[in-house]
């Protein structure tokens, strides 16, 4: 074992394991992102609304979810919550990939809480006069948000959102504790089977870094192409 032999890890069965893990990690990231963004935006709007109950709900949602580690969320959704469901729902869940579904739920809520804060600060960065002018012109709250405020807010919000996406990509690795067969899970499996820790982890690190650097490059590109205009 004194020589590093990458071919063991990169061929045949083990490569298949690692690749399927990588693809599942990407899928988890994609699906979570598509679900978390609308949810996060919704929560942000709740926090900004004039209805006290909605504001309270939004604030509680964000604070509770952000102050509990993702690992706890995953354990909670996989081991605690299904016990509350009626049997038919539980059985359906268990035969249809409970690991991945619970991982997506936990990740979505966690990411949405962070995205909500980013969207909220993005919206607040748009001067209040914009909203006032829109209301004065006769737009309802939602319409003025949709047509006037949010488009301006987006430019400010995108860089923090991209950094949340990066966090999301890295957070998928924690799903290994509930048995989701993503990249980290498969890496542990390959390491157990081959006893080659260095090679396995180098390959896995490179895989994670490749997507991370792509996302970071995307952020840099966006900030160059769409710089925030001073108002």
């Amino acid at each position: 074992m004194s020589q590093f032999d990458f071919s063991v890890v990169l061929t045949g069965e083990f490569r298949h394991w690692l690749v399927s893990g990588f693809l599942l990690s990407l899928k988890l990231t994609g699906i979570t992102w598509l679900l978390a963004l609308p949810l996060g935006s919704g929560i942000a709007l709740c926090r900004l609304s004039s209805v006290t109950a909605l504001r309270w709900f939004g604030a509680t949602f964000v604070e509770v979810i952000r102050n509990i580690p993702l690992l706890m969320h995953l354990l909670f959704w996989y081991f605690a919550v299904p016990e509350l469901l009626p049997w038919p729902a539980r059985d359906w869940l268990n035969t249809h990939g409970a690991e991945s579904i619970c991982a997506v739920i936990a990740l979505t809520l966690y990411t949405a809480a962070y995205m909500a804060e980013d969207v909220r600060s993005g919206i607040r960065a748009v001067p209040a006069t914009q909203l006032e002018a829109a209301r004065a012109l006769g737009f309802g709250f939602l319409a003025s948000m949709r047509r006037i405020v949010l488009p301006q807010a987006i430019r400010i919000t995108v860089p923090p959102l991209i950094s949340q996406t990066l966090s999301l990509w890295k957070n998928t690795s924690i799903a290994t504790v509930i048995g989701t067969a993503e990249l980290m899970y498969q890496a542990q499996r390959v390491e157990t089977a081959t006893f080659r820790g260095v090679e396995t982890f180098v390959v896995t690190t490179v895989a994670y870094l490749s997507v991370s650097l792509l996302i970071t490059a995307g952020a840099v590109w966006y900030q160059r192409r769409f710089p925030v205009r001073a108002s």
Partner: protein
Amino acid sequence: MVQATSASVRKKFFIRVQRAFMVRRLCAGNIVRKAEASVDTPAFVIQFPAMIRITALVSLFTLSLAPAAAQADQIADIRKNGELVCGVLGTDEPESFVDPKTRKIIGYDVDLCEAIARKLGVKPQIKQLSVAARIPELLQGRVDILAASLTHTKEREAVIAFSLTTFVTGQRVMVRRDSGIQSLAQLAGKKVVTVKGGTQEPNVRKAVPRVEVVTFETAPQAFVALQQRKAVGFVNDEVSLLDAYAKLGAAQKDYAVLPDSISTEALALGLRKNEPALKSLVDETLRELEKSGAAEKLFFKWFGPGTRLNFQKRNFKLETDRITE
């Protein structure tokens, strides 16, 4: 010094010194000449160039002794530290588990480790490890010995050494009765759960090629997943499985352990390779336990009548470290 020894010894010395001298000349230049030329060199060195050669010879001797010293190192290290660090699982009743009342780790493996520590004359230090981390931790030197429900396999022999087999068991599958599964073959296409990093996953995949396996960090965690109906089967060492089954109490009627074993597991203590002194000491301790009857008493203490497992007799002895393949 040279003058005081006998003639034949002097002759052998001289031949060796010539060789040593040639080696040193090749490697590091002529030390005698340097010594003679130096003003600060003590008088006896210049007067007796042979002294230099003897020193070179002695140092080569010492270097050749070093590998042998390294072999005895681990026992010496353990005695120097005053403790034997044993890696145990702490999550595998009754081999090693946390006693809820005293919050200490106890079990069959722990008792074996304590016996070896007694033999070495040091204190045992119990360190809890995850299943997947056992061999890496041993290889990294964080633990001196593994008493962690470790299966002796041919693949593992390439990286670590094993003591005499301390326990023989099989691996079996526990299923939910309402899944209607009564044989291994019916598991094809279904989901089973087990612990990460052990021999369970590869064994069940070999026994049932189309089975779906999900693994968790600890075996009890996987068992919880079975009980929560996340899978139809739970794979583990027979002893741990039977213990978990016994713990179910009234819920036993919902579960069954499939009769077929998916493998035979010879559990043994894990040691680093190239430590023959430690291995022979460990094996000797185990043999002594067997001869004095202490080994059988230990078996019955944790697995015998009166315990949850209620085994009536022991079907192995602590006598060999050969495994059948």
